[in-house]
Each structure stands twice: as structure tokens, then as C-alpha cells.
């Protein structure tokens, strides 16, 4: 494999980074990224870091983002509507 090919593969993976992190990729694209990550240590390290950061943000920002009482009311409303 040429260096140019490797570079292109990294670019193709990175181009899909944000959708990958959001699980918004089509199955084919998701597979493309995952298979690249098994072959490229550099991208694997970066993608793993991005996932960890996102998880941390999700866990720690959760508490601030909506007033609990209001959120609970709306969630209850949704559950009532479902049942």
C-alpha cells in the first residue's frame, strides 16, 4: 500500500468523524471507518479520544442542561401518552 493510499484512507475516516461519533453513518460508511480503525493506530487513538471526550461531556453536562422538574414533567407526559 502506498503512503498516498494510507493518507486518503485516514482522510476518508476523518471526514466521517462527527457522524461516526453520533452513530449517524450509513452501515457501509460505519464499516469503512471501523475497518480503517483496526488498521490505523493513529486514527484509532484519535477516534478513541473523541469518544471518551464526548462521553465525559454527556455525563457531566447532563445535570446543567435542563431544569429537572420541567424535564420530569415532560418525560411523564410522554410516558402517559405512550401507555
Amino acid at each position, binding site marked *: 500500500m502506498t503512503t498516498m493510499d494510507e493518507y486518503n484512507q485516514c482522510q476518508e475516516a*476523518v471526514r466521517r*468523524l*462527527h*457522524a461516526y461519533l*453520533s452513530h*449517524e453513518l450509513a452501515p457501509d460508511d460505519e464499516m469503512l471507518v471501523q475497518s480503517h480503525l483496526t488498521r490505523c493506530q493513529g486514527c484509532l*487513538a*484519535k477516534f*478513541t*479520544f*473523541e469518544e*471518551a*471526550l*464526548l462521553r*465525559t*461531556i*454527556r455525563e*457531566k*453536562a*447532563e*445535570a*446543567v*442542561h*435542563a*431544569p429537572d422538574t*420541567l*424535564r420530569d414533567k*415532560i418525560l411523564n*407526559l*410522554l410516558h402517559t*401518552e*405512550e401507555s
Partner: protein
Amino acid sequence: VGTNARAWLFRILTNLFINQYRKKVREPERFSMEASEDFFLYNRLSDLAMQGKSVAPAEEVIRRLQAEAIRTAIDNLPDEYRETVLLADVQEFRYQEVAEILGIPIGTVRSRLSRGRRLVQKAVWELIEETPK
């Protein structure tokens, strides 16, 4: 409950807490809007490790981030990025749902999210730099 009803309810909720955020006085343009680099934070933390200034691997630095730092980073985002990051990354709505809640095209969700994430990383980095070692 269909996507629309759920999205609509959360639009109301979003407006409520966005208004609440707007009431806070924020310093205008606290950071530069330049954030074109993917992996901004990873690259900065890797630089630190290379210079021997950090003993903790990048993931460990992230794990130690205080909730307060993350809140500050998100709070200081311009409104359109903050609401997109909150809905997509914190609330884990699908892009389509975020688009419906905010009344914007899905392509705009994608671009705001990628930019918003970069801005969060930049703000987090600034907070890490400010922290006394």
C-alpha cells in the same frame, strides 16, 4: 410517541432553557471563532505529553475534567452551537430530531455540530491552560 411530538415538546423545553441561558451575562466573543482543526484537544494534549509537561495520558486528563469546566465551555458557546451540542451530544437526539426541534435543515445540524464540538474543545483547552499546575 412519534418523532414529531417528541421533537416539538423538546423545542418548547429548549426555548425555555435557552432563554434562561440568555439571561446570563456573557462576555462577548470570549474566544476566537477559529476552530478549524479536527482533534484540536487531542493534538494539544499530545504536544504537552511530548514536551514532558503532562504525565497523564490524554484520556486521563479528560476523565479528570470537572463538570464545572464542561458547563463553562458549553455555556460560553454562541447560542446556535450551544443548542445543537446540547441536543445532539448531551441529550443524544438524532440529527433529524435536532433539525425538527431547532427548525433548521439537517445539513445545518451537521455543520453546527462539527463546529460546536471544535469550539467546546477549544474552550476546554483554554480552561486546562488556565488551571494552575
